């Protein structure tokens, strides 16, 4: 798709993607807090996080980050494989047309 864009258009798109990345990393921060709070904090007997809760949140944060990275990698793999399929499909359509 990017092959059809002019250089100026591509630069515009790259700028947007960088902006989007920053935006999403902030979103991910809130998302991690939301998920880990839900997983790790279940009682409200005190207002302080206890040692178990703190350790749970720390581990949860680390896991969430690692899972996010892995998800990104696997998504890339999937799309790469899909892209090859699509290219093959297009070629077959062109040949049969």
């Amino acid at each position: 798709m990017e092959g059809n864009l002019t250089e100026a258009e591509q630069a515009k798109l790259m700028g947007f993607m960088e902006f989007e990345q920053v935006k999403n990393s902030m979103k991910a921060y809130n998302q991690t807090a939301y998920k880990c709070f839900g997983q790790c904090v279940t009682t409200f007997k005190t207002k302080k996080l206890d040692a178990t809760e703190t350790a749970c949140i720390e581990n949860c944060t680390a896991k969430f980050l690692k899972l996010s990275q892995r998800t990104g990698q696997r998504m890339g793999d999937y799309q790469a494989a899909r892209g090859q399929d699509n290219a093959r499909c297009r070629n077959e359509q062109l040949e049969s047309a």
Partner: protein
Amino acid sequence: MSWFSKEPEQQQGPDKVEMAKTEVEMMTDLYNKMVDSCFSKCIANMKEGDLSVGEMSCVDRCVHKYLSAQEVVGSKTKEMEASMMPNGPQGGS
């Protein structure tokens, strides 16, 4: 920069950059939802900060399944829309 001459490539549909931006936003949303969903489904405990082997293979399968499901939703939606439109598909959206 010709204002009145017909350039078929430029005439069809909205701005290409806007389209690409929408696609980036859509993929970002898909990614966020997938991370959310696979985290809920695959992470069993918070005893350690590393993903276990089981969790890792769960995530790998989860991503693959999620994206496959996304495609099924897409093709089924298309099919339903096509059958609901008596005059056949219009445009190519």
